């Protein structure tokens, strides 16, 4: 009984942690959407800095013989200066209506799509174009609002076969065979 109690307590504590984490996460997301422009320009500023630091590391040389780092330093400076300017000149907070609209958008579906596409990229060499693309198409159709199973299956089979014949056989694109070797 004690052990069970302990587990319940542990689960409860973990659950609480998850709730707290989720709370932080949603606050972070809200802040991001409120300050999305500032966040973006901060990120571009970081890119500019990477460019400058990278450039100096490669070496800038001296006039007239510039080294391979000079141009990235030049471009990095432009990026950084413009980012700083835009960071301070954009409004800190968007209007309430704007931020609410931003929050209402369907970001979750995009995240799922990205995850699935990343998995596709990782696995396509092993599993192969035919099988994986079939499942990808099925999944995408359902994600984008297609109901039922018959249409997605038929469309996926036809598309995958047509693409295989068109690209692999006719246009000589080396689509990965994976598990099915023809």
């Amino acid at each position, binding site marked *: 009984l004690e052990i069970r109690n302990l587990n319940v307590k542990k689960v409860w504590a973990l659950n609480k942690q998850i709730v707290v984490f989720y709370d932080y996460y949603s606050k972070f997301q809200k802040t991001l959407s409120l300050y999305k422009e500032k966040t973006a320009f901060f990120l571009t500023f970081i890119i500019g800095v990477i*460019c400058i630091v990278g450039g100096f590391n490669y070496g800038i040389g001296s*006039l007239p013989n510039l080294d391979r780092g000079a141009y990235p330093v030049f471009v990095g400076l432009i990026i950084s200066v413009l980012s700083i300017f835009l960071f301070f000149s954009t409004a800190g907070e968007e209007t309430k209506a704007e931020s609410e609209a931003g929050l209402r958008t369907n970001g979750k579906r995009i995240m799922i799509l990205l995850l699935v596409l990343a998995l596709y990229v990782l696995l396509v060499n092993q599993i192969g174009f035919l099988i994986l693309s079939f499942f990808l*198409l099925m999944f*995408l159709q359902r*994600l984008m609002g297609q109901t039922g199973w018959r249409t997605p299956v038929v469309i996926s089979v036809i598309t995958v076969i047509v*693409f295989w014949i068109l690209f692999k056989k*006719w*246009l000589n694109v080396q689509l990965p065979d994976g598990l099915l070797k023809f």
Partner: protein
Amino acid sequence: MLNALFGGFQTAFSMSNLFACFIGCVMGTLVGVLPGLGPVGTMGLLLPFTYALDPTGAIVMMAGIYYGSMYGGSTTSILLKVPGEAASMVTCFDGYEMAKKGRAGAALAAAAIGSWIAGTLGLVGLMIFAPSLAKLALAFGPPEYIAITVFGLVLLSNLTGTSPVRSYLAAALGLFLGCIGMDNISGLPRFTFGSMNLVSGLEIVPLIMGLYGVAEIFAFLEESQEEREIIPVRYRELYPTREELKRILPPSLRGSVLGFLIGLIPGPAVVIASLMSYKVERRISKGSEFGKGAIEGVAGPESANNSATAGAMVPLLALGIPFAPATAMLISGFMIHGIAPGPLFITQHSAMFWTIIASMYIGNVVLLVLNLPLVGVFASILRVKSAILMPIVLLLCMVGAFGINNSIFDIGVMLVFGVIGYLFNKIQLDPSPLVVGFILGPQFETAMRQSLVMMGGDVAGIIFRPISGTLLLIAFLSLAFTITKYFLQKRYSNVC
């Protein structure tokens, strides 16, 4: 010149080139009809279909796709009030009103006839201007190339997006992306972060497909989808009345000249050309019927954007410098097939140049003949549910990105740029300057380093050359004007 053009027509009339032109036009129109996928996205999407062709056939097909997708964009503007691309936004105003009045067919015909007239006149302009500019460009040295790049990027950034400063940032980011990979002069890698895949640099096609195709699919996922109502077109409605035909001709001619001249200027020429032509036509007709279904409001802008396309081909074919994402896409098509456009292209690949010109003309005729009777078929693609169409488009993008080097890495690059394009859209950054910056970056850097060596490190020597000096002065004045305007506007809005 006429002999060369005749030779070009002879080559273009070969079965394989005619077929490539025909297929390019059909596929371009079919995909161009899809809202959101403009000419750039369409060309990226359909590029893999050119892989199996010889260089001439491939370029002919690309040009067909370009024209076809432009025409496809107008179809959705007229039938749905959804512009397939920015250039056909103006067509919505009167085209859709005409469609509501039961003259959808006539509006589509006006767009097709206007585009054909403009395409024909635009090509005449291209034939005259491109070879002379190329001859002039033979005298260009690296300093002139620096000036042209700065001039192009500044003008493009000033004219695109919500604010020029944001566009400058996009262009600079493009220049940075162009640095990734092997340095042109020393041959040593930069910003590859240890990845072998990045040593040869980023490929333009996955980058464009991501920014224009995948980003569009993300945006689609976010929006709530509603069924669209398509205005039906009957076959007998397709032919404009004699009076309508009379009204189509003058705006088409005016639009053609205006569009071509605007097309020569770096920037989103097709959009500006169609807007300008609409304004001109409204002023000439005293605006009575405009906005309520005036056929001039369809014919003028449609002709202008088509001849602007031909105008934009002048710097592309004569200098090898693209000033817009669509021409950047064309140039990447050239490069995939081992052709490097530049001042020597017209003299060294004279046969190919004239074949392209001839096939562009044939493409215009094919579009006219094909689009009028088949417009119903093209419009019917809009009846296919997006939930079915979009996944197929995404898979096509992925196969296309993969097909360039047979590399999975390129699919990853495309997806990353899909996310970047989506975020750009969120913060109102136009991706066009990024694409052009990316394309021009490596050439710009090489020219800069060569010029400095040539001038012994004397920067003033680059600025005070007649051609480069003039171009840099224009770019500087344009930059100064934009910045002053920006601050004045800000100050004025603060006072208010």
